[in-house]
């Protein structure tokens, strides 16, 4: 983690080529240093923050008054940072009999703010201060500060579940991790009104920018793991399956068991796991198959690579199977030499400098908050299985000489639907995650998707894909905008790279042209906005028979359209 001084230096860099994000920072204490830290971290992550710093203690006025500077600034993100100290002060000046309502009052303010403020809100929650007025009894006294602050933090979580553009930045967890005495410096606060210590600023700013990065689609999707001394203690090739340290019996096995537990939870959340180890493959697989204390099993692993080739080549192979960017991968290895090798040869991949003692792995990784996300859908836990199925398909395809025969043999079925309350989380998530097969890379949140689905000027489609090997779930989205009664504009066309080369493009195009015809439209206009990641679809529209319109746009004549071949059936 960079220090505050280094973040401050970042501000001297030229940011002209970085994408700009408009962020408003509203605080009830002095936030100048936080502003510097936020800008510095953003530059580190490749963004230029256009930061609106509100005058001191104007949070309520700015958010409630639609003519305020805040609304004129029109931020993409508004950070609301109301401090526990000011809240404690308010608590103290409230009549004792009214104190039990103070959390509710603050919550209704946040709720109102989330309805009024445009763009997304990042609300800081409240690191606890125990004023010890009631001692331990505070836990059962509604009028105590501890009771109210915990109620407030819990209430914020509930509010964020309800309001799709409200996100909580968890300052309370940061304080739990680094400690109140590190987070808060009483003498500095007293002399300056600055509530956050210099040392805590980088981590708080980083947690904040993590949220923004995630909502920009900048997330980690895959965790690649070494084996010996990373997932278990000892060397499987030398020590043998009965002597590796794992579980509660042998040596420091407990550390590895708990570490594996954490990795398993990530897999269940939808992070893809891969193994990359210098080992004889049969030996490397043995613990996964037979060791009674292994938490991770072979079916948790999407791609398993164990050989004696160099790790950079093996990671390139894993990338080619999964079809995701290197910058969405994390590699964990206990060996500093291997870490450096991977870091130097594969640009974009994140390789944390694991501490030497495996007992420290977890606390170290907790600090990094590697897997920030702004969406979660219950289908995420099946992701590994889908990548495993993909490996089977690749294997089956080798048996067919003719691609059409292969596609036909899959028995593919697609469900075409609009956006519903059931698929909205997945639609939003796909819009945030897809980088490669994404024509315009417009990111939508659940809130946005909800609005689009109700807007009569927008025509929204979602597609699933199932075949004899299994269900890929919802893998493609098209959003078309009504330009006038003749013209439809493709605002969004994106697809999961899991289902490349199955003829899904033809199927989706057949579907939307058919729809356009029944609605009486004459032309469909498509646009390609290049990013560093979506080169794959640069020729998407011409390949599908669209005619060039101008540099980035193509047009398709609905009436002249000939249905394209495909082997996917609609139900």
């Amino acid at each position, binding site marked *: 983690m960079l220090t505050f001084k280094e973040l401050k230096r970042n501000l001297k860099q030229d940011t002209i080529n970085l994408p700009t994000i408009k962020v408003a920072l509203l605080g009830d204490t002095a936030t*100048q*240093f936080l502003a510097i830290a936020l800008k510095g971290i953003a530059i580190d992550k490749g963004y230029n923050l256009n930061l609106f710093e509100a005058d001191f203690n104007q949070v309520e006025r700015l958010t409630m008054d639609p003519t305020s500077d805040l609304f004129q600034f029109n931020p993409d993100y508004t950070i609301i940072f109301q401090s526990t100290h000011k809240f404690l002060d308010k608590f103290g000046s409230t009549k004792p009999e009214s104190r039990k309502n103070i959390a509710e009052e603050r919550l209704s303010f946040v709720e109102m703010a989330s309805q009024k403020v445009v763009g997304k809100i990042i609300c800081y929650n409240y690191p606890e201060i125990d004023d010890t007025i009631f001692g331990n009894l505070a836990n059962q006294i509604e009028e105590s500060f501890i009771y109210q602050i915990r109620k407030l933090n819990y209430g914020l979580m509930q509010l964020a579940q309800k309001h799709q553009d409200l996100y909580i930045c968890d300052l309370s967890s940061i304080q739990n991790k680094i400690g109140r005495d590190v987070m808060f410096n009483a*003498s*500095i606060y007293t*002399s300056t009104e600055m509530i956050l210590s*210099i040392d805590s600023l980088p981590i708080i700013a980083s947690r904040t920018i993590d949220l923004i990065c995630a909502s920009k689609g900048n997330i980690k999707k895959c965790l690649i793991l070494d084996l010996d001394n990373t997932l278990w203690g000892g060397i499987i090739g030398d020590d043998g399956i009965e002597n590796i340290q794992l579980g509660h019996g042998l040596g420091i096995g407990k550390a590895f068991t708990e570490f594996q537990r954490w990795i398993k939870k990530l897999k269940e959340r939808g992070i893809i796991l891969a193994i990359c180890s210098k080992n004889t493959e049969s030996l490397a697989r043995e613990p996964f198959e037979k060791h009674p204390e292994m938490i991770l099993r072979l079916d948790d692993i999407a791609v398993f690579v164990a050989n004696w080739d160099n790790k950079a080549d093996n990671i390139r192979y894993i990338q080619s199977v999964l079809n995701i960017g290197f910058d969405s991968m994390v590699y964990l290895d206990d060996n500093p030499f291997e870490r450096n090798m991977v870091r130097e040869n594969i640009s974009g991949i994140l390789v944390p400098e694991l501490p030497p003692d495996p007992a420290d792995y977890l606390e170290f990784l907790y600090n990094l908050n590697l897997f920030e996300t702004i969406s979660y859908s219950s289908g995420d836990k099946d992701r590994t299985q889908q990548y495993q199925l993909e490996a089977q398909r690749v294997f089956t395809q080798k048996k067919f000489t003719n691609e059409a025969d292969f596609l036909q043999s899959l028995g593919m079925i697609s469900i075409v639907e609009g956006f519903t309350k059931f698929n909205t989380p997945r639609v939003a998530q796909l819009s945030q995650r897809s980088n490669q097969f994404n024509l315009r890379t417009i990111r939508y949140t659940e809130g946005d998707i909800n609005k689009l689905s109700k807007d009569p000027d927008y025509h929204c489609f979602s597609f699933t894909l199932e075949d004899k090997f299994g269900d890929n779930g919802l893998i493609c989205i098209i959003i078309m905008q009504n330009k006038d009664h003749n013209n439809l504009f493709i605002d969004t066309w994106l697809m999961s790279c899991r289902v490349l080369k199955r003829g899904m493009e033809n199927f989706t195009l057949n579907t939307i042209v058919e729809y356009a015809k029944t609605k009486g439209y004459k032309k469909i206009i498509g646009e390609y906005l290049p990013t560093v990641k979506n080169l794959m679809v640069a020729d998407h529209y011409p390949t599908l028979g669209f005619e060039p319109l101008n540099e980035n746009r193509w047009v398709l004549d609905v009436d002249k359209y000939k249905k394209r071949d495909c082997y996917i059936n609609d139900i």
Partner: protein
Amino acid sequence: MDREKIIAKVQEIFKDILDEEEIELKDNTTANDVDNWDSLTHILLVVAIEKAFKIKFTSKEILSWKNVGEMIDSIQAK
């Protein structure tokens, strides 16, 4: 630690925090004499000096110094 050594150490901290190579601190140096020494960087200086000398200033001290000399007095008194 003798006074001269303290001043020399504090001077290095000033150079580092304020990103200025040409700083020469004397007892009567004030914030007006040093580029970039404002109320915000003052806090960074205070925190850096506390860390370097493993001391803690009181909030009263932080607000009371009129010049470098008084700051050094506070460090020396710890």
